[in-house]
């Protein structure tokens, strides 16, 4: 397969997703409003240190924004029957998966970067490790965009079913990933956080902003890279199976 043709096909899928899905109601609600409201729910009325909490907020913002478009795209296209048209264009299943991931990652990256810039101006946030911040934004957006695409892979043409399913997976993760309670203060529940990929992203943000990460940034990055790989392979396996079974 011609590599340039393949890259072009990925970019075309991304362009289409950006034009169509960034403005969908569920993306705005679950990708933008939901993390803000969630944060305010936990923050308002408590005497909490905002700077200590900001890495967790950034992690949650990136997690929800990057994983919000993926679950919508494939079920929406299957319902509208545009998926069949897309597959008949010069694209392959890998271009569709990577294109969907890229569109989710760009959405998450841009939104979270804007939130970080606003936070830096308003709260005078520290920045202990700029390169770790870039790595966190880059790897986190790809990892959770891949999660979004994986969640949309089961054969269904009902977007609301997948949105419900994706929230069932996403919501528990924010409680065990050191967002509202720093990892160092989780105590006897600390063992639960290691199973959530979000833990490692939040830890990277802690290292980047306050310099108080629990794990080494190399370990955090390695886990996120592994997660990207696992999610992409799983999404490809499921979508390939769908293509074989005609669903």
């Amino acid at each position, binding site marked *: *397969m*011609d590599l340039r*043709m*393949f890259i*072009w*096909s990925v970019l*075309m899928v991304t*362009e*289409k997703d950006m*034009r*169509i899905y960034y*403005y969908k109601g569920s993306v705005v609600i679950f990708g933008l409003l939901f993390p803000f409201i969630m944060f305010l729910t936990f923050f308002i009325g408590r005497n909490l240190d905002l700077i200590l909490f900001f890495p967790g907020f950034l992690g949650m913002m990136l997690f929800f924004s990057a994983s919000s478009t993926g679950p919508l795209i494939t079920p929406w296209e299957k319902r*509208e*029957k*545009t998926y*069949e*048209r897309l*597959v*008949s*264009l*010069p*694209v*392959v299943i890998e271009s569709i998966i990577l294109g969907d991931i890229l569109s989710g990652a760009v959405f998450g990256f841009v939104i979270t970067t804007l939130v970080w810039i606003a936070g830096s101006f308003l709260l005078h946030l520290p920045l202990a490790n700029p390169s770790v911040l870039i790595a966190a934004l880059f790897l986190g957006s790809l990892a959770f965009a891949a999660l979004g695409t994986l969640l949309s892979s089961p054969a269904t043409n009902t977007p609301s079913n997948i949105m419900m399913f994706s929230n069932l997976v996403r919501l528990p993760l924010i409680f065990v990933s050191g967002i509202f309670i720093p990892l160092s203060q989780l105590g006897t529940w600390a063992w639960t956080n290691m199973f959530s990929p979000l833990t490692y992203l939040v830890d990277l943000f802690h290292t980047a902003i306050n310099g108080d990460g629990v794990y080494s940034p190399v370990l955090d990055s390695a886990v996120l890279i592994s997660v990207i790989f696992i999610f992409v392979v799983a999404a490809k396996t499921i979508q390939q199976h769908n*293509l*074989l*079974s*005609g669903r």
Partner: protein
Amino acid sequence: MNAIEAHNLYKSFGQVTAVDDVSITVKKGEIYGFLGQNGAGKTTTIRMLTGVLIPDSGTVRICDMDILKQPLEAKMHMGVIPENGTVYADLTAEQNILWTAKCYRMDRATREKKAREILIRLELDGRKDDLVRTFSKGMRQRISIACAIVHSPPVLFLDEPTTGLDVISRRLVIDTVRHMNREGSTVLITTHNIEEASALCSAISIIHKGKIIATDSPEKLRKLFDTSGFIEISFEQKITGRTLITGGISRAEPLGDKWRVYTDDADRAVKDLAKIAEQNNLKIVSVATSTPTLEQAFIEMTEGA
């Protein structure tokens, strides 16, 4: 070189065999019809030919490129109008065409020029900036066609392109298919509309229960059943079908204000009908003999299979 070559395609869904050992060869420049009843396996076959569905076994080559081994290269050579002619409802008519053209790696100037030409040809230039979601079914189908032909594909697949369309849209679709064929595109069209297939195609395959039961030109398929014909006759008076059954007429059925009588010997049947009219004091308003249509050939084949 053949434009489309499929060998021994097989696809089953659970216990149901949708396509059973289907092989198709479409010569360059041909308009090839794929005719069958609903559920016969037409759409499953076209989905395998276009790379939308992976066959359980068999091979597909488009312009000598294997659709499974060189999917991007093969797809660059084809345009597809899927069943229901779906396009992106949240994009405008022009955005749909331009984005599709970009997928085929056309440069900006060419894709804008082609989009303009096609929008005019399909009588949609006045609505080019409107979202497709505001369009009627016929207009959406025309946008679907515009997307499929924007890169002047060597091979064009159309899956039931005129189903449910109004007369104007239908005419535009048929004219566009003919135009694309004149411009050098090979066309494979699936349909259950026999008249359409007969008028458009130079070769037809009839698929029934997942198997191809006949492949030939429309004329030759019709000739296969040339041993029987029918006569359409109308009388000024009302009659019953029994009145018309004689030695040379095997069956009579009402057809609006006429009767269609089936016979193996048209000359003898006409004489018999004249005799019946005279005996019963019936005044003949009109009489016309006819040879079997492709529709009859199709019914005979699928009922016999």
